[in-house]
């Protein structure tokens, strides 16, 4: 119930709400109805207007159609007239063409003429069946022929430069002239020009010494000839690109031939340069030469100009190496001459002996600086900024075979050879080469062996990063060669000096009359001279060579040996009277003695020290004395003189040698031999001998 009442109440509420809503919106409904009515009126008016417009439009359309119908006819006529006009103008051009062409030709506007001709040709070709056109065409052909002729004339006259010629050729080509003939002619003309260039270059070469330096020359050649060739080549390639491989071949042949002649000239010029010492200029010239030729090289790969140029550069580089080697040799010989002069000069002036060590240092440093200078000069060839330095030759073979082997090793070898040649010079008398020079050279070679060679080679290897794998002479081989040379020189020095002293001794023995000589009062002057000379040699050798080892000796060597020498030997030998059996005894004695002493190799190889050198010299001298004594016959006093002389030598020579026993042996032998050669052998009292020797 409750809910029913509730429902009723709600329905009532809703009815009342509806009533209020209707009341509220009634006005709106009214106004809407009004509006709709007004709109109906307006639309009716508009419809009328539209109808009127439609009729008007219809009238306009009508008029327009009528007008266009009338204009149609005229328009067609105008179009036709325009076409006729154009045709007429073309015809006029054609008819005027001959005169125009003539005019152009007269004015020299060949380009214009060729253009006209080009334009007209096709038309004329097409309409040539018409008589009037044929006439024109004929005229044109005549004129064109004349034009072509004139162009050729101009082309042939040749005075104008390459670009103009190229233009002519271009025009002629446009005129349809045969390309092959043209390219031949073109090349012929280019040849003429380039040959003129070559001739001017040749004139520079001339028979007279070249005025411009090599750099100028290559510049001249580069800009004149190579530039010209470049122009020709590029013009040719532009113009005759259509010619294909045959044309390219022709150009290549052309370039090859002229290039060859150019190279010949350049080589001649470079050959003149061989004598000069300035490498930098040459390298710069070569660089320019090479660089210049790389441009046409790119253009003309087939002609192989770049390769040929590289070859020339390589050849020149090789020749330079040879030149430097010669230079080094000459420098070495120059040094030797200087040394000779230095050795000779002070003697004349009577001054102190030459400072051998100083001379040696001078020679060594001067040679080293020459080598360094040569290396530096040659190094220019491989400088980074030089265009050909990255060629494989310059990176590999040039460094290893050329510089290292050819130049440095070659020089050291030739130095050794030169030095050795002093040993076997035909003038074996020893007069040819001053002994001091031999000594100095020997020391020089030895120094090379110990240090200089490896230093120079390291320097070379550093400067020229040798990448080549080809075998090179190892340092040890060179060192061995140098050492051998040093040894031979020193041995030769010993021989020469030994010979000098032995000649002195020999003359002194041979020229003296030993039978009728007086009782000795003095040591002979020759012996003093021998000792003096030996001392001088000792000093000389001491300047360059170390002392060396000698056998141990007592402090008072001379005394001790004298006692041995005089007591045991003299008694053994001289005491017995010379009955027929006596010689057997002495021989037996000396033989037994020899059994215990070593055999003396007189000309034996020497070691690199002073003692060894002096030992060698003294050995040679004393052996000579011995042999000479054996060839003479002595009187009693002759024997005594020999005794005195030998004792004197004994006193002074022992200090120079490695083994003083050697001196004793040889001198004993001399005295013994003299005793055997004496029919009346009465030896002098040892004490008297001693007194005489000590007196002087």
């Amino acid at each position, binding site marked *: 119930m409750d809910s029913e009442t509730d429902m009723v109440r709600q329905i009532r509420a809703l009815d009342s709400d509806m009533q209020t809503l209707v009341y509220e919106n009634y006005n709106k409904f009214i106004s809407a109805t009004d509006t709709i009515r007004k709109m109906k009126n307006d639309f009716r008016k508009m419809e009328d207007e539209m109808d009127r417009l439609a009729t008007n439009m219809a009238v306009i359309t009508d008029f327009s159609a009528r007008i266009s119908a009338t204009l149609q006819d005229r328009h067609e006529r105008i179009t036709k007239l325009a076409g006729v006009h154009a045709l007429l103008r073309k015809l006029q051009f054609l008819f005027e063409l001959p005169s125009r062409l003539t005019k152009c030709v007269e004015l020299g506007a060949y380009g214009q003429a060729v253009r006209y001709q080009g334009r007209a040709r096709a038309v004329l070709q097409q309409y040539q069946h018409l008589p009037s056109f044929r006439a024109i065409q004929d005229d044109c052909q005549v004129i064109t022929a004349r034009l072509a002729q004139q162009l050729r004339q101009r082309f042939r006259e040749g005075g104008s430069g390459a670009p103009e010629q190229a233009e002519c050729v271009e025009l002629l080509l446009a005129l349809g002239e045969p390309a092959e003939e043209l390219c031949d002619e073109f090349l012929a003309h280019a040849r003429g020009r380039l040959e003129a260039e070559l001739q001017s270059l040749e004139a520079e070469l001339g028979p007279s010494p070249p005025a411009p330096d090599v750099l100028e020359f290559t510049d001249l050649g580069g800009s004149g000839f190579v530039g010209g060739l470049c122009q020709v080549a590029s013009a040719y390639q532009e113009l005759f690109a259509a010619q294909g491989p045959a044309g390219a071949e022709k150009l290549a042949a052309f370039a090859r031939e002229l290039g060859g002649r150019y190279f010949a000239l350049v080589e001649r010029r470079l050959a003149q340069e061989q004598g000069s010492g300035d490498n930098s200029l040459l390298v710069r010239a070569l660089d320019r030469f090479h660089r210049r030729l790389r441009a046409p090289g790119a253009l003309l790969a087939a002609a192989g100009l770049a390769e040929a140029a590289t070859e020339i550069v390589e050849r020149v580089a090789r020749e330079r190496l040879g030149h430097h080697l010669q230079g080094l040799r000459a420098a070495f010989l120059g040094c030797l001459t200087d040394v000779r002069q230095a050795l000779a000069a002070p003697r004349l002036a009577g001054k102190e002996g030459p400072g051998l060590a100083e001379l040696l240092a001078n020679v060594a440093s001067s040679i080293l600086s020459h080598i360094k200078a040569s290396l530096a000069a040659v190094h220019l060839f491989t400088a980074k900024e030089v265009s050909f330095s990255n060629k494989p030759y310059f990176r590999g073979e040039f460094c290893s075979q050329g510089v290292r082997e050819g130049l440095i090793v070659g020089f050291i070898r030739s130095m050794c050879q030169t030095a050795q040649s002093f040993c076997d010079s035909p003038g074996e008398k020893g007069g040819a080469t001053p002994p001091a020079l031999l000594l100095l050279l020997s020391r020089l070679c030895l120094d090379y062996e110990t240090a200089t060679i490896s230093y120079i080679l390291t320097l070379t290897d550093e400067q020229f990063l040798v990448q080549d794998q080809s075998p090179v002479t190892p340092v040890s081989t060179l060192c061995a060669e140098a050492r051998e040379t040093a040894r031979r020189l020193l041995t030769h020095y010993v021989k020469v000096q030994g010979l000098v002293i032995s000649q002195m001794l020999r003359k002194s023995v041979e020229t003296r009359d030993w039978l009728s000589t007086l009782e000795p009062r003095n040591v002979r002057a020759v012996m003093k001279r021998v000792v003096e000379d030996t001392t001088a040699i000792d000093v000389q050798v001491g300047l360059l060579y170390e002392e060396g080892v000698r056998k141990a000796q007592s402090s008072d060597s001379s005394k001790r040996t004298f006692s041995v020498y005089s007591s045991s030997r003299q008694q053994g030998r001289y005491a017995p009277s010379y009955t027929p059996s006596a010689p057997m005894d002495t*021989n037996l004695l000396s033989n037994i003695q020899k059994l215990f002493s070593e055999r003396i190799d007189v000309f034996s190889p020497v070691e690199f020290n002073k003692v060894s050198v002096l030992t060698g010299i003294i050995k040679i001298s004393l052996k000579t004395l011995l042999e000479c004594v054996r060839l003479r016959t002595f009187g009693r006093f002759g024997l005594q003189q020999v005794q005195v002389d030998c004792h004197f030598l004994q006193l002074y020579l022992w200090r120079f040698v490695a083994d003083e026993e050697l001196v004793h042996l040889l001198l004993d032998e001399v005295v013994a031999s003299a005793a055997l050669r004496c029919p009346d052998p009465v030896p002098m009292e040892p004490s008297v001998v001693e007194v005489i020797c000590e007196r002087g």
Partner: protein
Amino acid sequence: MEDDAPVIYGLEFQIHIVDFDDENNIISKNVLLHQVGEIWHISTSPADKGVLATCYNKPSDSKVLTCAAVWRMPKELEPGGHESPDDSTSPAHTLELLCHLDNTAHGSMACVAWEPAGDGKKVISLADSHILLWDLQESSSQAVLASSASLEGKGQLKFTSGRWSPHHTGTQVATANDTTIRGWDTRSMSQIYCIENAHGQLVRDLDFNPNKQYYLASCGDDCKVKFWDTRNVAEPVKTLEQHSHWVWNVRYNHSHDQLVLTGSSDSRVILSNMVSISSEPFGHLVDDDDLSDQEERRPEGKSQEPPQDSVIATYEEHEDSVYAVDWSSADPWLFASLSYDGRLVINRVPRALKYHILL
């Protein structure tokens, strides 16, 4: 088998004739007294084996003069005479003087050389700067000076050695003075060739190749042995430098001229094999044999070796300077050397080499 050995010491001067019996290897000697003086050079006649010439020092008060004389040995001592010298203490024999080569006008005699293959009548002697050609007449009892020539030049020129060439029918003689070697024509006594500075120092000895007529060997104080072609004297054909002191003697083997013997005062004797300049071309004989003896086959490889000069042997038996070497005239494989201490050494060519040369 004989060998003449001058011994120059003592108061008695003797010539020893040494007999070497090859089969029994026995050496025996006969002593001849040479009373006039010490002997410096000795040479035997090619025609008469009993005749020899010596150069000797004539003792005088104050001067030494070397003279030359021709001698005859006692008959019983002539080589080949089969007298056994059994008693060694037998008194020494004396030489019979045939004639003196009178040199009073010319100076000391350096050497005497007989004309090889001649009749023993022509002798060349070298006296100071003179070269003298003697004619021995009336069985060598008289020496007549046939012709002479002398060296001219500054200084005292002195011949040291001379050899008579076995070729050119005995008309050429070579001499040495100082460093120069000269060739002479004995018919005109004029100089044919001259090798200036043949050696760096004194030339000691010469020898002609017995089989090659222009080849000459020389040796000297520069320790070298040189071989010359006398047609071209500018350069030696070959130079040997094996000795360490003066070379006193050089001798070609009489029949196999590749064998060269040298003696030196370094007390060595060196036997060299100079194949490259010998008259026997290597391999030549082999070819001949191959053609002739088919049955005798020898290894082929042997003949292909290129000729190479070499030292065959160095003999060091001597204790002192060797002053003379020579080949035996009877046996080509035997040679003797003599040294200062009086030691005479007789040696044979090594057997291997002998067969190598013969076969």
